[in-house]
């Protein structure tokens, strides 16, 4: 019981208080612990957390398959994907490469031709000059997943160089090198799937906004208007919106704001029409058709930038300060042992 309940609390309280007060104690050993050791501890624990997270995911999927829960077929696919990633990461490097030593200088162009049969060469002249610069030893810029393919290509190069050797990229590095099995999995399977999932959002956002974005009250109208300004103002098409359209929209906006205070609809209509005529007249007189003459507040990109810089920044700051205060309160509760999320 002590190990399960009191011990974790003692560790959390002790380490929490030590690191908190460590920031205020000017002692090199304590500072060293807070800045270096504690972050390394965190790094090690985070690495274990990834391992535990993966195991937990695997356990959940296996249980789903065993129990034949709803959608168990997808879990099977998830387990297969997991196993494949483990295989490509830990058991099969699939990162073979070929090195040529003492290349025959007269056969450099033939070598470039050979390389162009296995991968696209953007600039053959540049590649030839690079090979000429490293005739003593040159690594073919292509990774072979299968050793047999690498060997058969190496055989075809035997007449070009004095020595053709086959190598495998070291463990760890093989995961990152373009052309290896793991990199193939990332770029050919994970990337398209991930991009597709994200791209689908555009369709659902369009459909949802069409159905749900309604002018129901003042707040909804404000949200809608600023949303539209940002959507149009942040893309190049916003530059094409003419000043008179923006000034007309501003007059309509002012009309909507003063409408509750003017019961006479004819007067309101007159004010709006008068405002549009006045703003258009001023625009024509001051020659706002010339881009340099347009006042900043009549350009949608400028309005959208203003929304970002002032109302958005103010709102975000308020939220951030609120979150910070909440974090401090929660941290204190954990450090003092009042709350035990662990």
């Amino acid at each position, binding site marked *: 019981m002590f190990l399960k309940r009191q011990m974790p609390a003692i560790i959390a309280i002790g380490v929490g208080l030590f690191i908190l007060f460590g920031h205020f104690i000017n002692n090199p050993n304590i500072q060293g612990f807070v*800045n*270096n050791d504690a*972050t*390394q501890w*965190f*790094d090690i624990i*985070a*690495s274990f*957390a*990834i391992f535990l997270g993966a195991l937990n995911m695997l356990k959940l999927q296996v249980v789903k398959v065993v129990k034949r829960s709803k959608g168990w077929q997808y879990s099977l696919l998830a387990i297969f994907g997991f196993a494949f990633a483990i295989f490509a990461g830990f058991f099969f490097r699939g990162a073979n490469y070929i090195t040529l030593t003492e290349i025959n200088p007269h056969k450099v162009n033939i070598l470039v031709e050979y390389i162009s049969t296995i991968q696209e060469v953007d600039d053959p002249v540049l590649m030839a000059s690079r090979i000429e610069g490293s005739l003593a030893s040159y690594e073919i810029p292509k990774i072979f997943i299968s050793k047999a393919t690498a060997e058969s290509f190496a055989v075809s190069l035997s007449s070009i160089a004095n020595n053709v050797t086959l190598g495998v990229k*070291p*463990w*760890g*590095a093989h*995961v*990152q*090198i*373009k052309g290896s099995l793991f*990199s193939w999995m*990332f*770029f050919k399977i*994970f*990337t*398209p799937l*991930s*991009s597709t*999932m*994200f791209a689908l959002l*555009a*369709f659902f*956002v*369009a*459909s949802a*906004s*069409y*159905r749900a*974005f*309604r*002018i129901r009250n003042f707040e909804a109208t404000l949200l*809608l208007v600023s*949303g*539209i300004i940002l*959507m*149009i103002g*942040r*893309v*190049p*098409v916003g*530059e*094409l919106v003419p000043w008179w359209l923006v000034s007309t929209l501003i007059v309509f906006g002012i009309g909507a704001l003063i409408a509750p205070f003017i019961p006479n609809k004819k007067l309101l209509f007159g004010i709006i029409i008068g405002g549009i005529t006045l703003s258009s007249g001023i625009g024509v007189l001051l020659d706002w058709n010339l881009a340099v003459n347009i006042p900043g507040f009549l350009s949608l*990109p400028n309005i959208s*930038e203003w929304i*970002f*810089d002032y109302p*958005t*920044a103010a*709102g*975000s*700051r308020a939220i*951030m300060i609120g979150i910070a205060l909440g974090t401090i309160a929660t941290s204190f509760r954990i450090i003092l042992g009042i709350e035990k999320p662990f």
Partner: protein
Amino acid sequence: MDLLKKIFIALGSMDRRFIFLLVGLSVLLPKLYPDLFTLPIKPSSHSLRVFDEIDALEENSKVLVSFEYGPSTKPEIHPSAIALLNHLFSKNIKIYAVALWPDGNFMATEAFSQVSDKYGKKYGIDFVNLGYKPGGEAVVKGLASDIRTMYTVDLLGNDIDSIQMMQGVSNLSDLDFIFSLSAGYPGSKEWVQFACDPLGIPMSTACTSIQVTDIIPYVENNQIKGILSGMPGAAEYEQLVQSALYDRSVTVEPGKASINMAAQSMAHVVIVLLIILGNITYYLTRKSSNKGGI
């Protein structure tokens, strides 16, 4: 008038598959016929700030570029990464790459492979990729204190003490600038809070459009020197870099963000039109239902 009303009400109850088709076409057509959808790209003040900050760096300055995005946000951030590497390499600046996201490793590898050869830059001399470490803010704090406690080897397994450009670099204070390519947590915020602010290192960021609201207070506070917001920001920076490199007699092909901006513009216009249409229908049906009609 009644006919018009009926048309609007019918449009208002459009099948969602038709909406999907409209959105699909609005993205597809500008991609298929780019010449018909050429739009001007004017840099915002935030993008200009990023460009000016990077452009002011001197030759052989040391810049840390952090990759915190993956394939799902690649269309928004990767163009910024490519433009940034073009900008930095053209000025002969040393680049130190790290990743706070596991996917960031792949993004960094791809970005370097796309750009480094063009400038004849060599790994270990002109750029180095230290790779991914789990831990988020703890990694940032660790790097701020001592890089070697976090990284003993680089992404390719080389001992970092054997890498030429790591000589004389012990922590983030030895670097001149930090650039965060961020799509969420851990990302730009953590760099500001645990490294750039305490150590006084200037930083800029390129992030997804959705993140801008979270990051903008730091930009307004001058803790982050400019922000490239989403694909529009990337397109603006691409244009600035392209024209600057043209002046330095370096030809750079138009970036992907600039090409994709027409598609994004059209999609936004379609969504806005759909919202307006939906509201007209809502207004008409509300009035009718108030009168006991439809």
